[in-house]
């Protein structure tokens, strides 16, 4: 192409482009540590996310031990946790710390940074046809802020008074007063500072994702030709960019309350017989600010999983995704509604009942776009020639979990029912199935599907199938019974249920759940082993398009360098879902439209 076509002021990209084939000074540091290549940054996010997932998962196993075997002692726990488990029994304070850290780690560090960070970074430039992100520099900073945030959160685990322990939602006054719990002394400050760094990271990432999708698409890649992964990652980024700053403002006010004596959230509080001077604050205010992020956040976690599952289901059904525009439209509707339903987490806060019913209506409306998506996934699968690759299994598992967990959301969305169900194990079951496990399935689907593109090798299939079956069966065995526990009133976040007669009936069930949790955790370690083993020793990819997929990432070399395409970026001539068309199994996006080609 002539130099006249080169954008004069886009110096960054042009120079980048001219040099990418012969990087002169690529050292270990610039290639693996301070890399500006979106693919390497994606892998950094993924590996950091995996490490966090192991830590967060291990925490849940430890506190499940307490719930499953409240009478038992485990001497090895004392070796592991020191005075937090003196005599081999977890202390109540540390139980809360573990629950809080489990939630924080899984929600933010794994399913937000680990999921969006990995796949938005990896897939956006590759699938829209760009050499890199709009600003590789900000992108690198995004990872390093996440890293910094991770280090701070990790250090907080070693504070003598323990890490934050007021729940992942850090409601004041518990989180605002050091007198309220040991975790609220220093641990909470670490939590807040770490999350502030995290938010900066999420914002820098989000800005880049949005700009890259809107500005850096290759020729012919109109918005309606974008793969659904990109649409989902786009809405995810928009949600993040608009909601994380609100959490930041809430966190700033909390920092002031904690350290500078203000009373944004505090009023009329008596601690150990002593009346605190704070007047005029409102703890509910924090809940509004928190859930204004918190609810969009659950969709920040879910949408990437939806997008990747859509893509993987279509590829492995060898059929176009059913209702592409409806899929985009429902993502859009979900993204809008996500901002309008936050108070469904606050039905029992004394919310004005009229306002409450408005939120009930808006909440239940989410069922409509959700049902559209489910319908379209099922119709795509319907009578398809399905290839049950591990990625496909996890994508189908995602659909199953989303249905199961979405249905219980409709129970909770009715304020009348929620008065009973709020803060019980029913909520725990709901959000673990629909968000926790479902998004993990989306993430696993993505890893199994794009691993060959990331590392030029395949994961081991036998281990993958064991991983899948143990995880899906185990997840249902763990979380399904919790619905019954919740319905009979068993509250979440309790350290020990054995002293309540009404909950004693569940002691066997609790033990069973804890037992399954350990097995499922072990299966995840198998995945981790498979991941790192296959990275170096897996079967090599020999076909640049092993799944026979249409999207652009498969037009790059098997191990693409910085810049992604050695030659020109391919031009796009069609949408991403031309499967089983005109007798052809698939037609990649860069294939020009033939004269005699039918309209789908």
């Amino acid at each position, binding site marked *: *192409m002539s*130099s006249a*076509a*080169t*954008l004069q*002021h*886009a*110096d960054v*990209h*042009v120079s*980048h*482009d*001219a040099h990418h084939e012969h990087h002169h000074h690529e050292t270990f540091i610039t290639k693996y540590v301070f890399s500006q290549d979106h693919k390497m940054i994606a892998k950094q996010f993924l590996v950091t996310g995996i490490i966090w997932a192991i830590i967060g998962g291990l925490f849940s196993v430890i506190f499940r031990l307490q719930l499953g075997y409240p009478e038992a002692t485990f001497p090895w726990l004392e070796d592991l946790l020191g005075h937090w488990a003196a005599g081999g029994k977890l202390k109540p304070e540390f139980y809360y710390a573990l629950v809080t850290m489990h939630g924080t780690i899984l929600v933010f560090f794994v399913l937000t940074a680990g999921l969006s960070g990995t796949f938005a970074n990896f897939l956006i430039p590759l699938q829209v046809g*760009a*050499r890199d992100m*709009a*600003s590789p520099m*900000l992108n690198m900073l995004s990872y390093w802020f996440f890293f910094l945030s991770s280090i701070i959160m990790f250090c907080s685990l070693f504070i003598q008074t323990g890490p934050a322990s007021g729940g992942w939602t850090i409601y004041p006054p518990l989180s605002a007063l050091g007198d309220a719990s040991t975790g609220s002394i220093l641990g909470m400050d670490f939590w807040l500072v770490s999350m502030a760094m995290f938010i900066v990271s999420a*914002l820098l990432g*989000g*800005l*880049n994702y*949005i*700009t*890259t999708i*809107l*500005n*850096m*698409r*290759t*020729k*012919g890649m109109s918005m309606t030709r974008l793969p659904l992964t990109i649409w989902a990652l786009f809405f995810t980024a928009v949600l993040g*960019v*608009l*909601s*994380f*700053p*609100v959490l*930041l*403002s*809430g966190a*700033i*006010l909390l920092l*002031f309350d904690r350290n*500078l*004596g203000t*009373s*944004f959230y505090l*009023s009329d509080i008596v601690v150990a017989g002593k009346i605190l001077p704070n*007047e*005029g*604050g*409102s703890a509910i*205010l924090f809940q*509004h*600010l928190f859930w*204004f992020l918190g609810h969009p956040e659950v969709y920040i976690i879910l949408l990437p999983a939806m997008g990747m599952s859509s893509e993987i289901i279509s590829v492995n059904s060898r059929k176009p995704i059913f209702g592409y525009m409806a899929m985009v439209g429902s993502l859009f509707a979900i993204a809008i509604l996500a901002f309008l339903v936050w108070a469904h987490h606050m039905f029992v806060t004394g919310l004005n009942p009229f306002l409450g019913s408005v939120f009930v209506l808006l909440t239940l409306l989410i069922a409509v776009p959700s049902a559209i998506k489910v319908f379209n996934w099922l119709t795509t699968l319907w009578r398809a020639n399905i290839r049950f690759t591990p990625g496909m299994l996890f994508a189908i598992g995602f659909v199953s979990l989303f249905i199961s967990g979405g249905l219980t959301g409709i129970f909770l969305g009715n304020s009348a029912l929620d008065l009973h169900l709020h803060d019980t194990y029913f909520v725990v079951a709901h959000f673990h199935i629909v968000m926790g496990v479902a998004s993990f399935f989306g993430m696993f689907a993505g890893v199994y599907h794009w691993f060959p593109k990331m590392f030029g090798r395949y994961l081991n299939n036998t281990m993958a199938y064991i991983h899948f079956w143990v995880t899906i069966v185990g997840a249902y065995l763990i979380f399904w019974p919790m619905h019954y526990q919740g319905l009979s009133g068993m509250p979440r976040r309790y350290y020990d249920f054995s002293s309540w007669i009404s909950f004693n009936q569940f002691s066997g069930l609790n033990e069973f759940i804890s037992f399954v949790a350990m097995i499922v955790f072990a299966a995840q370690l198998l995945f981790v082993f498979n991941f790192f083993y296959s990275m170096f020793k897996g079967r090599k990819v020999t076909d640049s398009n092993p799944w026979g997929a249409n999207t652009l990432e498969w037009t790059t070399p098997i191990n693409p360098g910085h810049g992604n395409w050695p*030659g*020109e*970026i391919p031009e796009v001539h069609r949408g991403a879902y031309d499967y089983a068309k005109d007798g052809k199994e698939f037609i990649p996006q860069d294939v020009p439209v033939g004269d005699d080609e039918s309209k789908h």
Partner: protein
Amino acid sequence: MSTVTMEQRKRIHPHKFTLWVGIGSLLMMFAGLTSAYIVKRNQANWQTFDLPQFFWYSTVAIILSSVTIYLAEKAFKQRMMQKYRSLVVTTLVLGILFIVFQLLGFQQLWAKQVTLTANVSYSFMYVIVGLHAAHVLGGLIALIVLFAKAFSVKTRSYNSVPVELVSTYWHFVDVLWIYLLIFLILIR
């Protein structure tokens, strides 16, 4: 070979676009704070107070600085580098003045017992105004970078994107301040 295709040429420069999205994000933060303010105001124990005179001086300073940076951008594009340099310096000085006036305003308030912790309404004012000032400080750092570039003999850049970016951001903090000022006057 080019990365930027014909289609991309028509679009806004990616860095500018990023800045606009970032501005949207920052607006959400202030929207969060100001709506929290409104919610709190409707509850008990809310005391009103008058904003200090110095806030008006700072308003004048920041509006002027918006004008000077606008002129600086224009001068840069016309390659009038001498004029550009002096306008960047003027903007920088006005920006510093803004911060100084804000601090003096805080001092005035403090002297009138309007302290950080005495009432929630005061706390809100300090946090909101202070957070805005922090964003102005960020802008000042960007201006200092521009300033260093403009006076460095080694780099001769005629790329106007950095200048436009800083100028857009600077107008943003200016408009944000005017919004916050009106907000704090009307809603108390």
